[in-house]
């Protein structure tokens, strides 16, 4: 499949954001994924989130690993630098990139094979280091490019398209992210744009490791009866605990929800997360331990919990922990970096 550029023309009525960009300025090449793929909905949600947040496209770096999900960065943010790393190793490349320039916004896109199998170690360590990034796993429970093998997030007992039953326990990346110290943890569904776009906006505004596990059905290999990652199954078992609005500081805050049912969280960058609680539960996303318990209980009942599951709005990121200069390291010059000849002469003298 070759690269398909999109025409630059757009409808004159297309709206602009505060930077003067239209949504088209955040799009990429035409997707080459299967028609109806959940991943394309996530790409569209990323485009919309970046547009609505007024992010300059070139200040975002998008990175991925290998697999269907990792192909998607070609299909959004065409004015951003992109990087397809090797399979399962996007987190280390993002970590390095972030070390070099702390001022860019880092978006890592991965899949369940990429992050829960070959790259489980790198996923874990990026979370525990607090790399300031948005890490989206486009989770379809299946290896698409190699034609339908189970992945490590396939539920025990799930059926493959060819009729085989998955015998192994599923890895729950949300549970792992919570345990590993991620400071923003969410789950969503590619079929629920209303939930997903605000979650991506909140994650992009978050300082620290922000993780979104996004169930994204594979229309070709994992959308059949007996699959627990099909559109129908996820719709039937989706239990959203909250609904999120992201308000950047310049907007006027209008609280239009009944008191008690809404919570406002202020993040490092000044953005406000307005959380409307849904359903019967009184879910508290600031309580990491309670999140574990809730997720386990609902999982036992066959429910897929979605929404913003945990957030620490004032977390330190990797640079805070390292004590790195506020100037991006890639901007430092010889004057700052090189100790010079006189220092070396002294050093020589001490080595005689």
């Amino acid at each position: 499949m070759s690269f398909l550029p999109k025409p630059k023309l757009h409808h004159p009525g297309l709206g602009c954001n505060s930077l003067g960009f239209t949504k088209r300025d955040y799009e990429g090449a035409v997707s080459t994924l299967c028609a109806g793929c959940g991943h394309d909905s996530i790409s569209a949600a990323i485009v919309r989130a970046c547009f609505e947040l007024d992010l300059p496209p070139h200040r975002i770096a998008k990175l991925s690993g290998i697999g269907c999900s990792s192909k998607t960065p070609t299909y959004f943010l065409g004015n951003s630098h992109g990087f397809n790393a090797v399979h399962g190793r996007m987190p280390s490349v993002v970590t390095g990139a972030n070390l070099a320039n702390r001022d860019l916004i880092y978006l890592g896109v991965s899949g369940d094979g990429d992050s829960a199998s070959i790259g489980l170690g790198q996923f874990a360590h990026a979370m525990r280091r607090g790399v300031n990034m948005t890490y989206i796993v486009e989770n379809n429970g299946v290896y698409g490019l190699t034609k339908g093998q189970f992945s490590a997030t396939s539920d025990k007992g799930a059926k493959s398209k060819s009729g085989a039953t998955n015998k192994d326990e599923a890895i729950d990346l949300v549970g792992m992210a919570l345990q590993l110290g991620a400071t923003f943890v969410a789950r969503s569904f590619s079929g629920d744009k209303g939930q997903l776009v605000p979650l991506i906006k909140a994650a992009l505004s978050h300082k620290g490791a922000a993780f979104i596990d996004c169930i994204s059905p594979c229309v070709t290999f994992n959308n059949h009866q007996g699959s627990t990652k099909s559109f129908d199954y996820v719709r039937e078992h989706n239990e959203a605990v909250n609904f999120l609005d992201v308000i950047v500081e310049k907007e006027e805050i209008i609280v239009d929800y009944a008191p008690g049912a809404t919570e406002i969280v202020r993040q490092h960058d000044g953005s406000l997360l307005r959380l409307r609680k849904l359903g019967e539960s009184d879910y508290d996303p600031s309580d990491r331990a309670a999140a574990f318990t809730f997720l386990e209980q609902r999982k036992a009942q066959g429910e897929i919990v979605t929404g913003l599951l945990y957030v620490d709005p004032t977390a330190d990121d990797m640079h805070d922990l390292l004590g790195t200069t506020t100037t991006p390291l890639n901007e430092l010059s010889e004057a700052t970096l090189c100790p010079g000849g006189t220092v070396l002469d002294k050093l020589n003298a001490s080595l005689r």
Partner: protein
Amino acid sequence: MLQIVKNEGTAVSVIAAVNDFVVKFANVNGSGSASANQLFAKSIIRMGVPVAPRNIFPSNIQGLPTWYEMRVSEAGYLGAREGTDLMVAMNPQTWDQDIASIVPGGYLFYDSTKAIPHSKFRDDINIIGMPLTELCNHEYSDPRQRQLFKNIIYVGALAALLDIEIEVIETLLKEQFRAKEKLIPPNIHALHVGRNYALTHLTCPIGLTIRRSNEVGDRISIDGNTAAALGAVYSGATVAAWYPITPSTSLVEAFTKYCGRYRVDKETGQNNFAIIQAEDEIASIGMVIGAAWNGARAFTATSGPGISLMQEFLGLAYFAEIPAVLFDVQRAGPSTGMPTRTQQCDLLAAAYASHGDTKHVLLFPEDPHESFLFGAEAFDLADRLQTPIFVMLDLDIGMNERLCRPLTWDDSRRMDRGKVMTSEELNTAKDFGRYLDTDGDGIPTRTYPGTHPTRGAYFTRGTSKDRYAKYTESGAAYVDNMQRLLAKFRTAETLVPAPQIRSADTETKIGAIYYGSTSAAMREAQDILTKHNIDIDLLRIRAFPFNDDVRNFIASHEQIFVVEQNRDGQLRSMLINELEINPAKLKRAVHFDGSPITATNIIDKIAGFLPAAQILEARSAL
């Protein structure tokens, strides 16, 4: 009380040498002997006599045998040498092998507190017993002091036995404990306890002595890992990602130390560097690639097993053209091999790292001085060539303090960041194609992420792409790209450090090619051979790709020995492959038992190919 034991009846031959002998200390790992042994070595260097010390140590933390071998050589030969002239036997575990390693007529210095059966000695060596434990027990009540000062006491005794100026050692102790002054008097006291005992009870000096000389000059003592780390500091490396592995660990430790000293902003306390201990070597190189892609100078330090793990990423860095610097401090492989023993065994794994067609630039420093130079140069080369650069150290260079030329830095030097387009340049340029060969040198132009709102963004990938970085599976575009990478490698040939030739005094058709830590032993071997009328020209390779000097050197000699420290002759294979040399012309002269190569090793290996009479003569002179 034992003094010098003369064995009954037989007259023991006695080695006599001034400023030219080997002293070996047999110690127990973790007993605090290292600093005392270094003190001893440094005192000889301060007397102007070159010394090459080497640590020989097991893969272990505490309790196993460890040796510190010092070659004293006024002639300046810093390679290892077989045989021990003076053995300081402080480890009962290794007694038998230590005794066996002493040359006939050599000396054994040992702790005579406990009686050792006569059968445990040899009758052709000179035995010097000193009741070290007894002396310590008498002087100190604290067991820890007894252990630590025992080391200083034997240094004091050795100073008397070898006629080392005691003031020199006193000065060194004062310098060493400048920050902890109260430690100076007890150390000096211990030194004199040992010295006075020796002067009173032993025959001083023995046949081996140190005489003040002027052969050290302005040289410094530093290990290669520290020097390489300083190279990284000086050339502006800001990101280090690594995973602990012997013998490379001390390189990142040194980088950390010097960044702490020179790279912390005095006003804000903020760090102008970032060091990450990664979860494994795969993540280390991934972080280096990410940082370098994003415009920081980044490196990792590792050894053979780490290079193996990094293979896939190295193919990406080659194909996607990302600068990256790797310090490979080689140790004996394969697998875990001998982790604390030296070899030059990663050449092929590094030069052709990864699947598919790849070629990587390698630099071969011969000593710490060049480790610094090449360590700094590697970052310019990586940026200029947009590709990984390997600095190939080994345990012998990396972990031993070596006398070498002082480190120098030209303050007018600027980082060569290579072809990077700025926002202004993107505004005025008519075209940006990430993989366009605009200058005909195979090197394209890159942009850093975040540079310009609408121009210069591109997608970096390991899949095939066209000159504008667009994904394509077109065979023609793939071939075009691979051929350009080859053209870039030819450009690298003109930028890397050129080989150095050391010609024999007389014209000869025999040549030897060598690299890295083989240097000292090779030059010594050449001198010995010359004395016996065997002339041999030397060519020291300092980098891969090889340039025309290498080609011409091989063409202008009839017989070439490729001297290296691995089993298979890895450099020889590369020369044959890359320069299309007839294999019969290149003789393999390899040493690979994990010990540093010696002049004797080299002469032995080439002996089979040279006139027998001459070689015998040269060999006997060793």
